[in-house]
């Protein structure tokens, strides 16, 4: 489980996160949703330690990540997998080398064992016969899937996904969502997804945290969000005229 306790983060005078208290549960797909500029990306970056929090703490299974020394943090980071918005695959490495990267850096596996693990991860995300392709030769959806394979290569306990569906067509988006959801259940991972895609919210949102103007505004499940009477939630969920009519 990942916990954010009394989290505050500012940039200059601008307070981006205000007193965030939220728990992300193990074996569930936890979603952080909110409008653009609401602070959800900053929250995710604070959770993984890419940004330092001003106040408060982040706990990984009761281990205080925010106050850890660099070496201890490094150990936790090896338990984290992250899928970035653009994939963030290393341009100079091919698909196989990208997925193998962490295995090369942190394990003493033999080349055969590493290749076996890489092929297993790629197979898990339905990428076959593409080991030698470079990121520039992959489609958007394939990049995301390779990035997922790279994220799970080290058997992570925690998986973070920053807008996994951005730039993808609806069909591929659902595919990626389902893949993340399946992997989460299969390996009992604590998954945190940052999104503003309502399809993802409805399809895979086991737990949803709605961030509004830097505050945790609402928490619930994908079923609860559809019947919530919170005005800000309704403005976000039923953003289009068509959806408002459907709700009525």
């Amino acid at each position, binding site marked *: 489980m990942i916990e954010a306790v009394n989290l505050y983060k500012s940039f200059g005078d601008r307070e981006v996160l205000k007193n965030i208290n939220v728990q992300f549960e193990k074996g569930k797909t936890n979603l952080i949703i909110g409008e653009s500029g609401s602070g959800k990306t900053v929250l995710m970056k604070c959770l993984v330690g890419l940004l330092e929090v001003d106040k408060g703490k982040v706990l990984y299974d009761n281990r205080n990540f925010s106050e850890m020394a660099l070496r201890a*943090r490094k150990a936790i*980071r090896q338990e984290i997998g992250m899928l970035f918005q653009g994939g*963030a695959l290393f*341009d100079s490495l091919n698909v196989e080398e990208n997925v193998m990267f962490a295995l090369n850096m*942190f394990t003493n596996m033999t080349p055969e064992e590493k290749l076996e693990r890489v092929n297993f991860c790629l197979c898990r995300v339905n990428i076959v016969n593409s080991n030698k392709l470079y990121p520039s030769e992959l489609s958007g959806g394939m990049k995301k899937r390779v990035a997922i394979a790279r994220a799970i290569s080290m058997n992570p306990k925690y998986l973070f996904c920053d807008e996994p569906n951005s730039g993808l067509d609806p069909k591929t988006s659902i595919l990626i969502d389902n893949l993340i959801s399946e992997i989460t259940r299969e390996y009992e991972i604590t998954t945190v997804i940052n999104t503003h895609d309502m399809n993802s919210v409805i399809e895979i949102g086991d737990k949803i945290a709605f961030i509004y103007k830097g505050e945790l505004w609402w928490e619930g499940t994908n079923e609860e969000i559809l019947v919530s009477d919170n005005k800000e939630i309704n403005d976000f969920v039923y953003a289009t005229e068509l959806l408002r009519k459907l709700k009525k």
Partner: protein
Amino acid sequence: MHVFYHIGKYGLLMVRTFARPQKWNAFRKQVFIEMDALCLGSLGIIAIISVFMGAVLVIQTAYNIDSPWIPLYTIGFTARQSLVLEFCPTMISLILAGKVGSRISSEIGTMRVTEQIDALEIMGVNSANYLILPKVTACVLINPFLIALSMFLGLIGGWLAAVVGHVTTSHIYILGIQSFFVPYEIFYALIKTAFFAFIITSVSGYHGYFTHGGALEVGRSSTLAVVYSSILIILANLVLTQLLLAA
């Protein structure tokens, strides 16, 4: 105050850069890749510039010698001294600051804006160490060899100009480049080169590493990397010359 902010930030980055590599095998492999990409990839331009630089030096020196009291072997001697002491180590390093510096800065800058550096950090990899140290090591180790080659090619260029242009005879030119030779001057030039290689790679790495934004900022970082590397090379040239050559 802005200067001190950057010096401090650069210093902290260097502390992270010079940490122990995560895996020595991966580090060694990366150093060889960088040697090939950054150093050996510059061989062509270095060869062309060196040959022509040597040739022009010989022609200009001959042009300026109009007294019969000055022996003709002075042409070879002057060309050697100019090439070894200043032209090859400093001028070639300034050219490398443009070629290699902009490459390093734009490569690391692009990795920053496309979140590849964040991906390294999330994995628990010391990104500064992984990205910058192999480049610094490769250039500091290989650039002195490149400059030694540049000196040799410069002297060959001078010889070609002397012989083909009938400036002087081959024998007199060779006599000139052998006259009053002090081996320490080669050592001085190579030490300078190693320092310049460090400046080029670390300053360019710094500008790339702290790029924020998009394509525009990557381009801006590349320009800043070249400008600051060049200025620092010129400053370091003065300091090192004073330290190593002043009586």
